[in-house]
């Protein structure tokens, strides 16, 4: 079953001389439960692709369809709500809210929706991520790896269909990288979610079900199975 689909997705920055084509006519399909790695050199447009897939930016042309909804036909507010419910994000620099504790950061998407927090689920999630002991710590009291684990928790809190991770281990040492990646995959596998990861790490990419390689805004390789 196809969870995510793009149609001629393009993004251009600037005008005239400074015009940059960050992404050109990308057509991708991602199935439910798939683990997709997006690879490419810096500035190749892979972040742009991820932002567009996740509804963070708006494309210059083309569509992104997630679970049957053309997400860029939604208003800003609707898009926000869509992100909150359907999409999880993990960033390179964790981007946790410094004033919230680990647990609160994780439950934030639920609180934003005024949804009753499923305590059992959150507890289980925190268990997998090894954060039970640290749930009342604030981000500045956590190590990089721990912070990234919190951000994985936040991305999964609403049980979204897709989790996007932008260089999730880019800021971590190899030991922590490995752990974070394994935990990310463990959790995604546990809840049968789709995972799209931008990475430089070929080791991580090699674990993926599919690798999308991108260069100068063009998808050059779309290798996969299933």
């Amino acid at each position: 079953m196809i969870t995510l689909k793009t149609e001629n997705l393009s993004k251009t920055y600037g005008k005239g001389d400074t015009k940059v084509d960050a992404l050109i006519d990308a057509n991708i399909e991602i199935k439910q439960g798939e683990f997709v790695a997006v690879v490419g050199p810096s500035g190749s447009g892979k972040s742009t692709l991820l932002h567009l897939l996740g509804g963070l930016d708006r494309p210059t042309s083309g569509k992104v369809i997630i679970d049957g909804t053309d997400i860029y036909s939604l208003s800003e507010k609707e898009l926000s709500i869509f992100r909150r419910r359907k999409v999880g994000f993990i960033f390179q620099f964790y981007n946790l809210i410094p004033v919230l504790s680990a647990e609160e950061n994780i439950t934030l998407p639920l609180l934003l929706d005024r949804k009753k927090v499923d305590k059992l689920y959150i507890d289980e999630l925190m268990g997998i991520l090894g954060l039970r002991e640290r749930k009342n710590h604030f981000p500045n009291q956590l190590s990089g790896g721990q912070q990234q684990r919190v951000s994985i928790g936040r991305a999964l809190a609403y049980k979204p269909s897709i989790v996007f991770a932008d260089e999730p281990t880019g800021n971590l040492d190899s030991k922590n990288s490995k752990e974070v990646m394994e935990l990310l995959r463990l959790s995604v596998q546990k809840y049968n979610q789709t995972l799209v990861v931008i990475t430089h790490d070929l080791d991580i990419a090699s674990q993926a079900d599919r690798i999308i390689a991108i260069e100068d805004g063009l998808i050059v390789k779309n290798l996969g199975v299933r």
Partner: protein
Amino acid sequence: MKSYKDLTLRYLRNQLKRTLLTILGVILSIALITAIGTMLESLKQQSIEEAMKSSGNFHTSISGLNFEQINVLNSHLYVEKSGFEVTGGFAKTPKNSYVRLFASNSVYQQMLYISLAEGRLPQTKGEIALEKWALRELGEDLKVGDSITLDMMDVSEDEVLDVVFKKNPDVTEVQNKEAVRLELTISGVLENNSESRLKSIARGIVAPELIEELKGKSFAGYKTYILIKDKKAIQEGIGEVCKSLGMEKSNAKDNSRLLYMLGQSRDKQTNDSVLYVTIFLTGLIVAATAAVIYNAFHISVLERIKQFGVLRAVGTTPGQIRAIVFGEVLIVLLISLPLGLLSGVLAVKMVLALLNLSRHSFFIGVNVVLSGKVLASSALVGAASVFLSALSPAFLAGRVSPIEAIMNNRSHKRLMKKPKSYKLIRGILGVEGEMACKNLKRNQKRFFITVFSMCIGITVFIVFSTFAHYTFEGLHGKDGFIGDYGLYSTKDDGTQIYDYKDYEAIKGIEGIKEIYKTSHMQAAVTYSISKLTDEYKREMEHYGLEIKPIGNTDNLKPITSSLLSSYDEKGMERAREVLQDGTTDIEAINREMGVLIVQNKEINRSKDGKQSIIKASNLRVGDYIYVDITSGLMGEKQDLNSVQKLKVVGVLDKLPIGEPYPKFSVPVVTTEEVYRKITGKTGISSFDIFVEKGANKEKIREELFKLSEKDKSGMLVDFGEMAAELNQIKLSLSVLLYGFVAVIALIGVLNIINTISTNLILRTREFGTQRAVGMTIGQMKKMIVTEGVLYGVIGTLWGTAAGVVLSRVLFTLAIQVRGMLWKLPMDAIAIAGIGTLLATLLSTIVPLKRVEAMNIIEAIGREE
């Protein structure tokens, strides 16, 4: 955490220092608004009471009624209370004063606050209650129970006043028609009334029956004083009463002072000027407040752009972000509002308590009135300005793109325009200066906010200082020069009824502090027509005054005679205070045979009929004017050879002693020596006398009175406590106004510190990088300080410009009407400029310390 809205509290707690600073700003602002409101309300209440006490607690009065009409009014539906009085006539005392005999009812006595020092009011036909000071005028050691004889004459008050003030020095007594001799027993003594003292007409209350017997039942000499029932529709009430009496409303003479205070004047226009000023100043304060709050919230939003980006990325809607920011606003407001209101009221209480330590305080008897209306509207205005100013930051926060969360370098899209180098600045201030300049240019929005926040403080400061300045000017104006006593002559033809012996005599009286001796006479003054200003020419045409040369010269034919006066050393000191150009040095004037002139005039402007001050001519130091002491130039005289040609050595804004601004004349002031040379007169026309505190005023008055009696045109004016009161008013007002200015300055400084220091703290990482590439602490300091100073200079420039423009607006709106000339508020500009620079430097201290203590590695690694 129960809801995402709890984020609000977290953010506030997390940025405790900023929150406290914001709260402080809001408290100050609300306190200021509340204080001004409470002050105005208290002053208004006091003024109402004051108006009641001085002009009586009644709304309107109607004269010429008979007894029956008075009774009908008593039962009138629209009337709450009505009192009456009826004057029988006037009786002369042995000295140059009179007693007015009148009867009244008890309501009248309440309304006009007639209070007894001792005894009681008359109850029978043969009794009288007299004013305290009249007792001494009537005889030695009179007391309650003594009998007096009065010859009551049926004359009008005007006739009496003409005699008292020697309209015609040859008439020393009221022309007696047929006096009625009355034998009366003193039943009580009334407290003195300053007006009766000034008029020299004492009050004497008798029983109504006496008047009724003397004048008959249908005597239409009753005057009623009415208090209307509906306090919100007084004019309608007055109209109804007049209708019932079958007369025009214009027959009723309103207690205009009280009605004005109650806002129920017949002519609503009178209120406007005061209203405008109040609105304008409150508006400014609200604007300043709003700016401070706007800044505080704006900065706190800017600081968290990235976090809002994250929130947006995880699915926070713009509306929810706004809700978070507004939540912060609400909490700040909830904390600040009660504290602001409370401290505002407390501040007023404290200021008043301080001011009231002095006996003569202008604010004696002013009770702090806690008006619900004022508190509510202050709260409302405060809350509204807080919310309005948070509007833009909240929407800014809502508009943050989720991309911001991921982008580490936010300016990636905004490509720098052409890299510019500031060679000139590098030459003067070095590389650090150039860096500072570039930092300013870097983020236009932040630059704008910073400059704006400096501007607003400076602007409000300048406007308020200007306002304070003109308020004092106003006090120095018409009634500005008041001594305790004045010895004048009722003639102004140059007769000098006093001489230097008198001067010595006065000096010899115990308790005299200062004496100003002046001489004056009327003279014709002229100068070249080409010196007239266009504005003045227009006004002259409007008033039908001819601009005509004398003979074949180009000098203006004088329209009216002008006052030529001589001042002594003390007078010249006063003149120096209003000197616009030239000198008031006596020797210099003597040497040059020079004069000081006043070329500003107060006229009713033709375009709107408002009283205003205009500059009539462009005479400068070194120009010559002609002074004709015979005033012949106003007549047929065509020849300038026979009149005095005098050099202008100084230009005064206004006359420091006496009526400050002329209408169409050209007042000329000179030294006693020059005056003597011009006029040949050696005497003295008048004395203005100041006495020591605690001096025996009765005795001084007696002595001075004797001096005034030596000529029949001589006159002694007793200003009573007016001089002391005036001084105190000045002091009180200055404390009050400059208190406000100080609070405004404080708000401004707070704002500057807030903006500049955040500006710098936000850039810790950048500073770390700069340190890493080899910038020394010294260089960094220099760069930061230069940046601050540049901000200060630019802010001051804009703030000054805005301040001057707004001051000018305020001036046209309100002050001009009261008759003053516009002057650039240089002092305020200077203070604002220096203050801003100091505040800017002050605000770099904390960030500088941080930079110094900074660990470079940490700073660079810091996640912003």
